[in-house]
């Protein structure tokens, strides 16, 4: 840490808030608020003379409030930079510290917060995690019984730099405990509080037990656990060592701790699952091994950086297996437990990985982006005419679109990943997507439905999942109806309702609207945008009296070739079950509706050329003579 502070190219900004982040990969602009310490960092040499004269004691949060610090303090003696800070909530303005500082003149009571902007190439988020507060779990009596302590309090009590200089004592009477119980999974693997396994606590409990046993071989140590999870190099061996040292392990989650009012001894009630019976053991002290929980301000960090959260409040990675360090926003990376709870080796690994991911950006002059980004036609955008809209920005999972009333929406190409959700959502067709323009897609639909459309099953597939599913169905030789005709778009979010109307207008027998499973979307929330639209369409078609089964919405992964084949076959059955006249009559009845609904699409630039072109293509295809001998 000291090395890092001295490095000419590293700036450490502690006691500083990130207020705003603008820009994109390689070109972020970050607004920082350096909070006033009331001590001038350049002048303070960390001598600590001010602390000696300060008359105010404040609970020291670094020592889990087990010890005080003065109103002028550093969080811990190893702090980098070693600059003191005045806690203005506690300070009584006696100015003794100013006198003690003397000629250094490092203390400045008039200091203000400094707000400034920095140019940043890439960002690594390493905000870590917090500890679960076990007070709501009244059954364990934390906060009620003095000798029930948390893991972090234990950490300070047995730390040689801690408030007791490493002498483990009972808070109730200051005596050294002769027996200690450690309870695992306090607040984790618990649906009432946090459903997740906190990953490191089993090893943490064993580490603490071994440490206490080494410090005091006479101590009686028991670990209560549900499952001991030791999935790491050397971890199981460490667990073995703990058992060999005489640490007892009881499988069974304690349901209750009771306290003897006179002696403050604690009775832990649990089932001993190995014995199959309820046991009640007495201990001098109980340590609750709390769960890890997200930092309380994750929401602020999420919104400032525009990064999303997974369930529970951990920052969401781009892909859980293949891109665990990247966030969906290019140029922002995750390190350590803010992405999900990790032990020390895993945190170091992810930190190193994030640093190397970030340095790729810093070392390149150019950065490749997705080719199929969105583009706005400013003259068509309703926002440029001073009207409220913003539907495109709402659909964008990456925050790549800026909309301000009075000027046309603006897509930042470096942020855009090319899902096409905004293109489909725009009611004025003011956005298009390179390589997937409305005209191109429309031309494909018209070409594929040129002949006997009523027999065709028209499938919209997303690039990452359902297209792969269809592909797999083919390569696996799963047979499905030959009447299927499909096109590929990048995401189900791109499947514009106009396309569906157009397919029916052209007389398609059935339409499949397919994409990824909700949790698998390549574009974070693209599938949700698509699903909402599909749900709306389903209702519309139901109202219009379309035979159910002619419009179908399915989420198919790239591994579900069999599902793709089955669905197409089922749709074929729906068409087969309708008498041909009835089907044709239904298509004809609905055609005016579809025409009405898809009319606005024809205003879109390039559409008319596409229509003419695809009509010509269709004519050629229809009249193409089959070479003799191959029929």
């Amino acid at each position: 840490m000291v090395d890092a502070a001295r490095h000419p190219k590293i700036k450490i900004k502690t006691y500083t808030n990130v207020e705003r982040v603008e820009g994109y990969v390689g070109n972020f602009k970050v607004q920082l608020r350096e909070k006033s310490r009331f001590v001038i960092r350049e002048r303070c040499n960390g001598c600590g003379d001010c602390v000696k004269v300060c008359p105010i004691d404040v609970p020291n949060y670094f020592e889990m409030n087990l010890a005080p610090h003065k109103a002028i303090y550093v969080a811990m003696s190893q702090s980098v930079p070693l600059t003191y800070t005045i806690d203005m909530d506690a300070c009584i303005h006696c100015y003794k510290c100013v006198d003690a500082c003397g000629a250094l003149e490092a203390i400045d009571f008039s200091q203000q917060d400094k707000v400034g902007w920095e140019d940043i190439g890439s960002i690594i988020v390493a905000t870590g995690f917090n500890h679960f507060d076990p007070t709501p779990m009244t059954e364990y009596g934390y906060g009620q019984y003095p000798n029930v302590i948390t893991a972090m309090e234990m950490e300070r009590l047995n730390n040689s730099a801690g408030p007791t200089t490493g002498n483990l004592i009972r808070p109730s009477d200051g005596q050294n405990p002769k027996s200690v119980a450690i309870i695992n999974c306090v607040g984790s693997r618990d649906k009432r509080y946090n459903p997740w396994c906190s990953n490191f606590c089993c090893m943490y409990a064993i580490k603490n037990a071994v440490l206490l046993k080494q410090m005091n071989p006479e101590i009686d140590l028991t670990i209560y656990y549900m499952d001991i999870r030791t999935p790491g190099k050397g971890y199981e061996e460490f667990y073995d060592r703990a058992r060999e040292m005489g640490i007892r392990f009881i499988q069974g989650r304690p349901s209750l701790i009771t306290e003897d009012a006179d002696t403050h001894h604690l009775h832990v009630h649990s089932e001993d699952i190995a014995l199959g019976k309820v046991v009640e053991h007495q201990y001098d002290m109980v340590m609750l091994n709390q769960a890890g929980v997200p930092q309380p301000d994750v929401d602020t960090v999420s919104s400032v950086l525009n990064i999303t959260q997974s369930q529970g409040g951990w920052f969401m990675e781009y892909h859980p297996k293949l891109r665990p360090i990247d966030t969906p926003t290019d140029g922002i990376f995750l390190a350590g437990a803010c992405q999900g709870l990790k032990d020390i080796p895993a945190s170091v690994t992810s930190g190193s990985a994030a640093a190397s991911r970030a340095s790729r950006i810093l070392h390149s002059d150019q950065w490749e982006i997705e080719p199929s980004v969105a583009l706005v036609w400013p003259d068509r955008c309703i926002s440029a005419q001073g009207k409220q809209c913003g539907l495109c920005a709402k659909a964008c999972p990456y925050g790549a679109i800026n909309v301000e009333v009075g000027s046309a929406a603006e897509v930042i190409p470096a942020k855009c990943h090319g899902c096409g959700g905004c293109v489909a959502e725009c009611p004025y067709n003011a956005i298009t997507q390179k390589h997937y323009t409305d005209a191109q897609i429309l031309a494909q639909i018209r070409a594929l439905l040129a002949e006997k459309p009523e027999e065709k099953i028209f499938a919209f597939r997303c690039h990452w999942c359902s297209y792969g599913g269809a592909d797999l169905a083919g390569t696996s030789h799963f047979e499905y109806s030959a009447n299927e005709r499909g096109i590929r778009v990048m995401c189900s979010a791109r499947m514009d309702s106009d396309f569906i109307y157009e397919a029916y207008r052209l007389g398609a027998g059935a339409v499949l609207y397919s994409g990824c499973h909700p949790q698998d979307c390549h574009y974070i929330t693209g599938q949700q945008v698509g699903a909402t639209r599909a749900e709306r369409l389903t209702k519309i078609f139901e109202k219009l009296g379309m035979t159910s089964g002619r419009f179908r919405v399915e989420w198919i992964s790239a591994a579900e070739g069999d599902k793709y084949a089955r669905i197409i076959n089922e749709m074929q059955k729906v068409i087969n079950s309708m008498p041909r006249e009835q089907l044709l009559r239904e298509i004809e009845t609905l055609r005016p509706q579809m025409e009405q609904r898809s009319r606005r699409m024809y205003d879109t630039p390039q559409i008319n050329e596409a229509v003419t072109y695809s009509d010509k293509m269709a004519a050629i295809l229809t009249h193409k003579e089959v070479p003799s001998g191959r029929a």
Partner: protein
Amino acid sequence: MEEHNPSTAATFAAQVRSVPGGEHLDLCYSCGTCVSKCLIQQKLEPEYNPRRLLHMVMMDMREDAYQSPTTWLCSACDLCYPACPQQIHISSLIGAVKTLAVQDGHVSPLETVQVDETLCSGCAICVMSCPYEAPHLINKEVNGVMDRFSEVDASKCMGCGICVAACPMGAIARPGVANADILAQMKIKKRKDVPSLVVFICDWSLRADEDVALLETFPANVRVIHIPCSGRIDPQLALYALAGGIDGVLVCGCQPGECHFKRGNYVSQCKISLLDQMLGQMETAQGRVRFIQLGTQERGRIRLEVEGMLHDLAPLREVR
């Protein structure tokens, strides 16, 4: 032991899942919290173990589950429910197993209450008082006359005795704690110097073994009478005690929300506090009967309460 047989797999577990309350079966990861929260294993039946019953169900061990005391002894006090980290409503699950067991012709091994039809008036007070919906009214012809009687469903009755205390005709009895049994225990040799006290103690309100052991150490002027639930206490029993020259009656029940039989503690608290007010109106000094709630997390309180009651009774002796 019954073998796990894959050919019949899913049948029993699926059946339990399909009974209302049985849906959350598969969430159980066998942590044992419910077992240690429950007092039945500690106080009544060492073989009782909800965690194991749930596992038996998951493994399709139908007969083992039916034979298990867990199926029959759970009184749905739901102490385990707020403690369960998987939020499984365990008593509903056990209830689902019990429902199937009853359907398959098994009978509860519990000591249940019995109705004396010669005394029963068919007033249905027992029907309203029961936390388990065990009693119901039937029409029956006796001596050529159709009449209404109460009948108790033995598969539902948990033997708490709340209906026994409620019945105005004294028509219901629970073997072991019938009125006569309790009255027989009330005989105390009275002394002039110290007040005499009857302590009715609900078996479930004391968790710590030391506290249970403490009950044996009270002096001869304090008579401890064990009852299945404080709801079993009929105010008449307290009046009998006072009429018999005993100075005070202390009824110990569970904390609100912790009654082993759902609501016996509320019923008893209402009755005892009403009785206390009535005694006050009858110019017999108030304070001779008292209801206290003992929490499962409290240790050693019963001693303080008994001593406190004896202390408070001393001045009242003059009033008689």
